[in-house]
C-alpha cells in the first residue's frame, strides 16, 4: 500500500511537471470519451433501452397483409373479429385517430385525439404521472366523457399545472373531464395528444362500422407469454381466411397478419437505427484514434525516460514495479480525461435533448444514467489498458548499462517500442481514412439528393392547412369555406396564385387507394394502390408541374364537380405504356373517410397526364397518382398553396390574420402554421445533412489526431537522430536530401495505414448502402481522391519536423555527443 502511494505521489508530480503532455492527453481523452459517451447515450435511449411499457417485448403493432406483401391498417370490425375469434392475445386494443380542435385562451389548437378501446391501458401499461386512467364504467357506452392527457399536451395547454386534473376541455363540440396525465415516455401513437374512450364516438362515427382500409387507426396487441409470433400469425391467418370469405369486397387477398414489434414502430421501422449505429461506429473510431495518439505520446515519454527507468532497474526495481509506476500515470491521465469527458457528455446530452431533430424518437429517454456511467467506466478501463500497457511492455533488458552510459541520449526503447509507435501511427492513418471515406460517400449522396428534381417548383411558395371546425362538417359548407379562404388570400398584395390540395408533396401525408380500369380484371397480386389526390384547378400551375398531354382542370370542372381525372406519368406508364390514356374511363372509390359516401365507386374520364412529382420522398421513385377536382370528393381538411411575387416570409405573418378574419375558430398553430414549401424540401435532406455534419466533425477530428500523431512521432525521431543529421550535414548532405531521408522513413508507415484503411473502408462502407442515394458504397472517385488527400496530409505532417532536421548545426550536434 505504501509503495502504491509512493507511485501515486510520484506520478502526480511527474504529470504536473510535464504539463503540456498532461494537458494534451487529458483534453484528447476527454473529448474522445465525452463524444463516445454522448453518442452511446443517444443510442441507449433511442435504440437499446427497451420501451418503458410493461412487458414491452410482447407488444406489437398489428397490420393486415395481402398476398403481394402490402400492409394496411386494420378496421374496427376486423379488430372486433380478432378479439372474439383468437386466443393468442393477453390484451388487444384499437385506436381511432382524429384531429380535434381544442379552444384555448391563446387561440384554438389542433390536437391529435386517440379514441381507444377498453384494453388500451392494459396493452400499454404504465403508471400515470398525475391522476388516474379510465375506469371500466367510463369505457362503456354512455360512460362519463373523460380524457387522459400526454405530458406534452398538458405542458402546452395547462403550463404543467397540476390543477388540470378535474378541469374540463372541449374537443370539437364535446366536453371531457381530465382525469390523468401520462409520463413523458408514454405517447403512442407519436401523434397522440389526448386519449379518450372510443365508446364516446362509437354511436356516431360511421367509419367504425366500415371494413377494409382505415386511415388514422392502429391496433396494438400484447401477446400471451407462451405464444410465439409464428403461432400468432398462424392463428390470425386462419381468421383472415374466414373474413376474406365472409367479406370478399373488403378482405379478398388480405389473408395474413403481420406483427411488428412496438419497438420497431417507435423507431420508424428502422429509419433511425442505421444512422445512429453509423455515428456510434464513427465515434468509437475517433476514441480509438485518441487512444492511439495518447498511447504514442506515452510511449515517446517513456522512451525519453529510459534513462530514469534504467536507473530504477539498476537500483533494484523489478519489471512489475516499473510497469506499475507507468500504469499509475496512465490511470491518472485517464481518470482526469474521463472526468472531463463526463462533464462534456452531461452538457452535450442536455443540448441534444433541447435541440433534437424532428424525427428522432424517444428523445425524453436520452439521459446519462447508471448504465452509461458504467459504460464510461468500462471504456476508461480499456483506454487505460490501451495507453498504459504499451510502455509497460518491456522485454527483459540484459544490458542495463547501455542507457546508463555517459552521453547516452535516452534510448528509443527496445525494438518493440518503435514498432508499436509505427503501428499506432499506421492505425491512426487507417482510421482517419475510413471515417473520411464514409463522410465523403454521404456528402456525395447528400449532393445527389439535393439536386433531385422534386417535380415541382417550391421557390416562393407558402402552404398551410385549414382544419374546419365542426360547423363545417357538411361537404358543401367545407367547400364554401375553402373557396372563401382561397379567395381572401388571392386578394392579398403579392399573391400570384392560390391552389387547394388534400395532401402536399413531401409532407408525409398521402392516401393509397385502389383504382379499376374497365376491361382489365383486378390483379390482387400486382395491382398497386394509387395516391388519391383532390385539387383545385390552379394546382398544377401554382406548383409549376407541367402537363404532358391533354388538359388541366378548369374552374368549371371544379365548380360542377365534373367526373374528370388527371393521372401522372407513373400511372400512365403502368397501365398505358404504349397508348395515350386521355379519354379513357377509370373507376375510383370515394376516399374522404368522414363522409357518408366513403368507399363509393365512381367513374371518371382521364382528361390529362401530368408530370411526376416525388410525393412521398426525394429518395423515392414517383408513385402513381390520380388527381380529381376537390369538389368531387370534399376532404375534411384542405391544404392551401400560395405562390407569392415577393418574399414568402412577409406573407407568413399575414396569413393567420386573414384566416382569423374568416373564422377565428380555425386554428393556425402547430402543424397548421404557415410555412415555406422550400422548408419541406430541405426537411427531406435534414437527416442526411445532420448525419453528414456530425460525421464530418468526427472525420476532421480523426484526421487532425492522425496528423498530430505523425507530427509527434517524426519530431521525436528527428530528436533521436540529431547527431546523425549533424554528421550528414557536415559531410555535405543538402537540406532537401535530409528531408527526403526523414520522409522516406515515414512514407512506408503512412502507406501501410492507407492500404489498411482503404481495405477496411471497402469492407465496411457496404454496410452503409441503405443510407446512400445514387452513390455506390465503393465509389471509386471517393475512395481514390480521399486516399490521396489523407496521404498528402500525412506527408505534410511529417514535412515540418523533417525540415527541423535541416536546421541542426553540425558542430552543436557533434559537441552534444
Amino acid at each position, binding site marked *: 500500500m*505504501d509503495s502504491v502511494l509512493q507511485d501515486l505521489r510520484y506520478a502526480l508530480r511527474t504529470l504536473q*511537471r510535464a504539463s503540456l503532455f498532461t494537458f494534451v492527453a487529458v483534453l484528447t481523452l476527454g473529448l474522445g470519451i465525452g463524444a463516445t459517451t454522448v453518442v452511446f447515450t443517444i443510442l441507449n435511449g433511442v435504440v437499446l433501452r427497451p420501451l418503458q411499457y410493461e412487458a414491452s417485448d410482447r407488444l406489437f403493432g398489428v397490420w393486415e397483409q395481402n398476398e403481394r406483401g402490402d400492409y394496411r391498417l386494420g378496421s374496427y370490425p376486423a379488430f372486433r373479429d380478432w378479439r372474439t375469434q383468437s386466443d393468442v392475445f393477453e390484451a388487444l386494443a384499437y385506436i381511432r385517430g382524429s384531429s380535434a380542435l381544442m379552444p384555448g385562451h391563446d387561440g384554438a389548437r389542433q390536437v391529435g385525439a386517440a379514441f381507444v378501446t377498453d384494453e388500451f391501458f392494459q396493452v400499454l401499461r404504465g403508471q400515470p404521472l398525475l391522476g388516474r386512467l379510465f375506469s371500466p364504467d367510463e369505457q362503456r357506452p354512455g360512460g362519463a366523457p373523460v380524457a387522459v392527457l400526454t405530458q406534452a399536451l398538458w405542458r402546452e395547454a395547462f403550463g404543467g399545472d397540476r390543477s388540470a386534473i378535474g378541469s374540463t376541455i372541449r374537443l370539437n363540440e364535446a366536453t371531457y373531464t381530465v382525469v390523468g396525465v401520462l409520463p413523458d415516455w408514454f405517447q403512442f401513437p407519436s401523434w397522440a395528444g389526448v386519449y379518450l374512450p372510443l365508446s364516446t364516438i362509437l354511436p356516431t362515427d360511421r367509419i367504425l362500422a366500415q371494413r377494409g382500409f382505415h386511415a388514422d387507426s392502429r391496433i396494438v396487441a400484447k401477446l400471451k407469454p407462451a405464444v410465439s409470433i409464428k403461432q400468432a400469425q398462424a392463428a390470425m391467418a386462419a381468421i383472415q381466411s374466414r373474413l376474406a370469405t365472409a367479406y370478399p369486397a373488403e378482405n379478398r387477398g388480405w389473408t395474413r397478419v403481420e406483427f411488428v414489434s412496438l419497438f420497431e414502430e417507435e423507431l420508424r421501422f428502422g429509419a433511425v437505427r442505421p444512422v445512429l449505429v453509423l455515428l456510434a461506429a464513427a465515434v468509437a473510431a475517433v476514441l480509438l484514434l485518441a487512444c492511439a495518439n495518447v498511447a504514442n505520446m506515452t510511449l515517446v515519454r517513456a522512451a525519453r525516460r529510459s534513462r*530514469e527507468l534504467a536507473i530504477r532497474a539498476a537500483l533494484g526495481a523489478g519489471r512489475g514495479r516499473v510497469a506499475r509506476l507507468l500504469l499509475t500515470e496512465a490511470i491518472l491521465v485517464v481518470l482526469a480525461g474521463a472526468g472531463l469527458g463526463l462533464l462534456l457528455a452531461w452538457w452535450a446530452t442536455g443540448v441534444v435533448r433541447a435541440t433534437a431533430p424532428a424525427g428522432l424518437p424517444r428523445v425524453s429517454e436520452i439521459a446519462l444514467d447508471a448504465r452509461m456511467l458504467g459504460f464510461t467506466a468500462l471504456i476508461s478501463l480499456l483506454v487505460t489498458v490501451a495507453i498504459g500497457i504499451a510502455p509497460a511492455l518491456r522485454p527483459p533488458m*540484459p544490458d542495463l*548499462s547501455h542507457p*546508463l552510459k555517459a552521453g547516452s541520449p535516452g534510448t528509443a526503447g527496445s525494438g518493440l517500442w518503435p514498432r508499436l509507435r509505427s503501428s499506432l501511427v499506421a492505425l491512426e492513418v487507417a482510421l482517419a481514412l475510413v471515417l473520411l471515406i464514409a463522410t465523403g460517400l454521404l456528402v456525395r449522396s447528400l449532393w445527389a439528393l439535393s439536386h433531385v428534381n422534386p417535380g415541382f417548383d417550391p421557390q416562393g411558395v407558402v402552404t398551410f392547412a385549414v382544419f374546419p371546425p365542426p360547423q363545417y362538417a357538411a361537404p358543401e359548407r367545407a367547400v364554401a369555406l375553402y373557396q372563401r379562404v382561397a379567395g381572401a388570400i388571392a386578394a392579398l398584395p403579392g399573391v400570384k396564385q392560390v391552389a387547394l390540395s388534400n395532401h402536399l408533396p413531401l409532407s408525409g401525408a398521402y392516401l393509397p387507394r385502389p383504382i379499376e380500369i374497365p376491361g382489365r380484371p383486378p390483379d390482387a397480386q400486382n395491382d398497386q394502390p394509387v395516391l388519391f389526390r383532390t385539387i383545385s384547378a390552379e394546382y398544377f400551375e401554382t406548383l409549376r408541374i407541367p402537363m404532358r398531354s391533354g388538359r388541366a382542370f378548369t374552374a368549371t370542372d371544379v365548380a360542377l364537380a365534373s367526373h374528370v381525372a388527371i393521372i401522372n406519368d407513373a400511372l400512365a406508364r403502368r397501365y398505358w405504356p404504349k397508348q395515350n390514356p386521355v379519354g379513357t374511363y377509370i373507376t375510383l372509390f370515394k376516399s374522404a373517410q368522414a363522409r357518408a359516401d366513403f368507399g363509393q365507386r365512381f367513374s371518371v374520364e382521364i382528361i390529362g397526364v401530368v408530370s411526376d412529382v416525388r410525393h412521398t420522398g426525394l429518395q423515392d421513385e414517383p408513385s402513381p397518382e390520380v388527381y380529381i377536382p376537390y369538389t368531387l370528393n370534399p376532404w375534411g381538411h384542405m391544404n392551401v398553396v400560395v405562390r407569392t411575387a415577393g418574399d414568402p416570409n412577409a406573407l407568413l405573418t399575414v396569413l393567420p390574420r386573414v384566416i382569423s378574419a374568416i373564422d377565428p375558430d380555425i386554428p393556425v398553430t402547430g402543424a397548421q402554421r404557415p410555412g415555406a414549401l422550400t422548408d419541406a424540401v430541405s426537411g427531406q435532406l435534414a437527416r442526411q445533412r445532420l448525419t453528414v455534419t456530425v460525421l464530418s466533425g468526427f472525420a476532421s477530428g480523426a484526421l487532425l489526431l492522425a496528423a498530430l500523431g505523425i507530427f509527434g512521432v517524426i519530431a521525436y525521431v528527428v530528436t533521436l537522430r540529431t547527431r546523425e543529421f549533424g554528421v550528414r550535414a557536415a559531410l555535405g548532405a543538402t537540406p532537401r536530401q535530409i528531408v527526403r531521408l526523414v520522409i522516406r522513413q515515414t512514407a512506408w508507415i503512412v502507406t501501410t495505414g492507407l492500404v489498411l484503411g482503404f481495405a477496411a473502408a471497402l469492407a465496411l462502407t457496404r454496410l452503409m448502402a441503405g443510407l446512400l442515394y445514387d452513390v455506390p458504397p465503393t465509389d471509386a472517385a471517393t475512395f481514390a481522391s480521399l486516399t490521396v488527400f489523407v496521404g498528402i496530409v500525412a506527408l505534410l505532417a511529417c514535412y515540418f519536423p523533417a525540415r527541423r532536421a535541416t536546421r541542426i548545426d553540425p558542430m552543436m550536434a557533434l559537441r552534444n555527443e
Partner: protein
Amino acid sequence: MFVLRRISLDVAKGDFVTIMGPSGAGKSTLLAVLGMLDGDWTGEYRLLEHAVHKMKHKDRIALGKQYVGFVFQQYHLIDDLTVAENLAMPLSYRDVKADDREAAVADTLDRFGMVAKKNLYPRQLSGGQQQLVAVARAVIHRPSLLLADEPTGNLHSSQGKDIMQLFRELNAAGTTIVQVTHSEDNAKYGKRVIQLRDGWVVN
C-alpha cells in the same frame, strides 16, 4: 567481436581495487558485469558463495540487489525526486517498511551531512553534492560490494578528493570497492590497480 577477453580476477572481501586503462579497454563493461547490469558474457563468476554463472537472469538481478551498490559518473539521480526520496528508492525496491526506510534515510542524511538538503531536487545541487547523494544512495542498503564508474569524472578536483576520501572511509568500514578511473590520483586511494587493454587484463 569481444569487449572483454579471458578476464581472471579475484577481489577479496574488504579490498579496494582500481581498474584502469585507455578508452575502449572494457573497464565500464567489466564493472557492469560485476554489478549484474550486463548479462551478455560467458565464463565463471562467483560473488561471495553464489555461482552467478549458473544463475538465471532473475536470480542474478536479485543477487545484485542484495549485495551490490553502484555509483555512476553521471550521478543518475531521478530529477523529479528530492534528495530524501532518491535515497529512499533502493530501500523501497527492497520492500523495506516505511518506518525503517525513513529511519535509514535519516541516518544516511546525517552521516553524509545532507540533512539540510533533504527536500531539495537534484537540479538545485552542485555536481559534487549530486555525486555525494549518489554515493549515499548506493550505500544506504549496506551493500557488500560498491562499484564506482568514474565517480569523480564530472567533478572539480576538490570535490573529487572529498568523494574519494569518503570511499576510503567506507572501505575502512568494511565495504569492498571496485572503481574504474582514468585518474592516477584516484587510483592511489585504492589498494591495488588492475590494467585493462583491449579487453585483456595486462597486469
